[in-house]
């Protein structure tokens, strides 16, 4: 059962009932879910969590919905891999990869949507909708299918083909708008005022965004109930980044882990780095930009949670880094070649940022460091198509040996 007491404006503190609302009527500040933490502390323990399912729903007590009716396609509890090979390259002895690219629709967005779809059903909606840079689209379509809901997904028209097909296959109605994600998002906010649909990232947002906290919980549990020393997180709107920190803080406040001292590091690609820019200017306010980046899943020029991401950076002593566009593909390749994990451009951004932080000496050799890999490389294969150069041969020994020797033989 849920321990939510209501909604509260993060800016002016005004309180609202548990309804499909996302914005404060008075100051336009974002609304956030309030919990009865005393009640949670009475029911939750490491043991109660360990008895739960091997999905994100093992943390049901800390989510703003009734888990008994969860729209559940087994999202979460994804692998935390000790990254010895990548660690050797970077000079880090305690590096881990949180591989969230193996969720049911192959990105971390399944976490937020699982919560949002559950809440949408609780509110009695029959249609699930979103504006998406791609990953959210697939997650909404998959969970909508499972929930038996109608699904409308709004995307920028230039999205990668893998993400379009990976959404349409679930029977979702796709609307491709000729514009950027920020344009699509603006359109959807206006639609949400007119249509009685559950827009997961608009009127469901206070509930939706809480799903990302499970990426904090899981990592702490998988590390043996402790917070990492460093977390490396890619950022678009900045919501994931702030919610991972919220998750770690909650565990710490509930006494399930020791003091959370994690330095939260935020990474963007240079072609879309408005949060990093504000960090460099030592400002808490993000100036919107027009994105031009290979990392389309991070291409949000007007990041709604930029302000809170910047506050989290300050509170935790983390750094914000922008990585050169050309290093994104190198990051994807480095992770694949060292750890056997094929990520999309956002993961390439994370790995390139991790390398940048390691080179700067920000991370001590033995500190526990977790890099969050949030999306799957199979969705954006076109950006790395150049790596495939097979030896073309006749199907016989001679032809193989000739081609093999020509390519450098056993030494290649």
């Amino acid at each position, binding site marked *: 059962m849920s321990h939510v007491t209501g909604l509260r404006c993060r*800016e002016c503190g005004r309180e609202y009932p548990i309804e499909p609302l*996302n*914005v*404060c*009527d*008075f*100051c*336009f*500040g*974002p609304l956030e879910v309030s919990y009865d933490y005393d009640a949670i502390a009475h029911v939750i323990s490491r043991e109660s969590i360990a008895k739960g399912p091997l999905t994100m729903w093992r943390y049901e007590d800390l989510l703003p919905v009734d888990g008994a009716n969860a729209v559940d396609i087994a999202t979460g509890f994804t692998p935390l891999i000790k990254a010895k090979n990548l660690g050797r390259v970077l000079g880090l002895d305690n590096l881990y990869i949180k591989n969230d690219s193996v969720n049911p629709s192959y990105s971390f*967005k399944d976490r937020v949507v699982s919560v949002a779809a559950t809440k949408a059903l609780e509110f009695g909606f029959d249609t699930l909708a979103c*504006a*998406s*840079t791609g*990953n*959210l689209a697939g997650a909404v379509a998959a969970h909508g299918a499972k929930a038996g809901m109608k699904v409308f997904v709004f995307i920028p028209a230039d999205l990668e083909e893998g993400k379009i097909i990976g959404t349409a296959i679930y029977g979702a109605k796709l609307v491709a708008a000729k*514009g950027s*994600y*920020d*344009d699509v*998002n*603006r359109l*959807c*906010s*206006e639609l949400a*005022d*007119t249509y009685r649909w559950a827009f997961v*990232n*608009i009127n469901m*947002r206070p509930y*939706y*965004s809480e799903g990302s906290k499970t990426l904090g919980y899981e990592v702490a549990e998988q590390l043996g109930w402790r917070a990492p020393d460093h977390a490396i997180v890619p950022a*678009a*709107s900045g*919501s994931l980044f702030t919610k991972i920190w919220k998750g770690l803080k909650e565990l710490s406040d509930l006494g399930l882990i020791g003091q959370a001292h994690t330095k939260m590091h935020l990474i963007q690609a240079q072609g879309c780095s408005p949060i990093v820019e504000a960090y460099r200017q030592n400002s808490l*306010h993000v*100036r*919107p930009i*027009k994105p031009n980046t290979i990392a389309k*899943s*991070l291409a*949000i020029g*007007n*990041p*709604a*949670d930029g*302000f809170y991401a910047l506050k989290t950076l300050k509170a935790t002593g983390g750094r914000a880094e922008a990585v050169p566009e050309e290093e994104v593909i190198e990051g994807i390749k480095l992770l694949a070649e060292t750890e056997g994990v094929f990520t999309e451009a956002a993961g390439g951004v994370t790995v390139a940022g991790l390398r940048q932080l390691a080179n700067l000496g920000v991370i001590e050799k033995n500190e526990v460091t977790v890099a969050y890999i949030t999306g799957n490389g199979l969705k954006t294969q076109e950006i790395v198509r150049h790596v495939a150069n097979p030896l073309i041969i006749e199907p016989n020994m001679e032809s193989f040996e000739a081609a093999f020797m020509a390519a450098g033989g056993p030494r290649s």
Partner: protein
Amino acid sequence: MGNVLIRIPTPLRRLTNSQDKVTIECSNLIECVNVLDTRFPGFKERLCDETGELRHFVNIYLNGEDVRFLQGLDTATKAGDEVSIVPAVAGG
């Protein structure tokens, strides 16, 4: 000076007697906000902070373009323009 169509988001419709569109006459966005405030008292306070700056979680679009890419509230308007007031939303 010319007639400009303003799209009113849900949180502000309580002030506009539930109207979702309002047409007003103005020549720039500051004037637009002031005219709206005269017609619907309290309107300006919702959009702007004490210093008259746009609140951080409010986005204003002129014909689909974020006014922060234009001249902010100093941006000029002309007859037939459309102004949208949109709260910031999460992504992605």
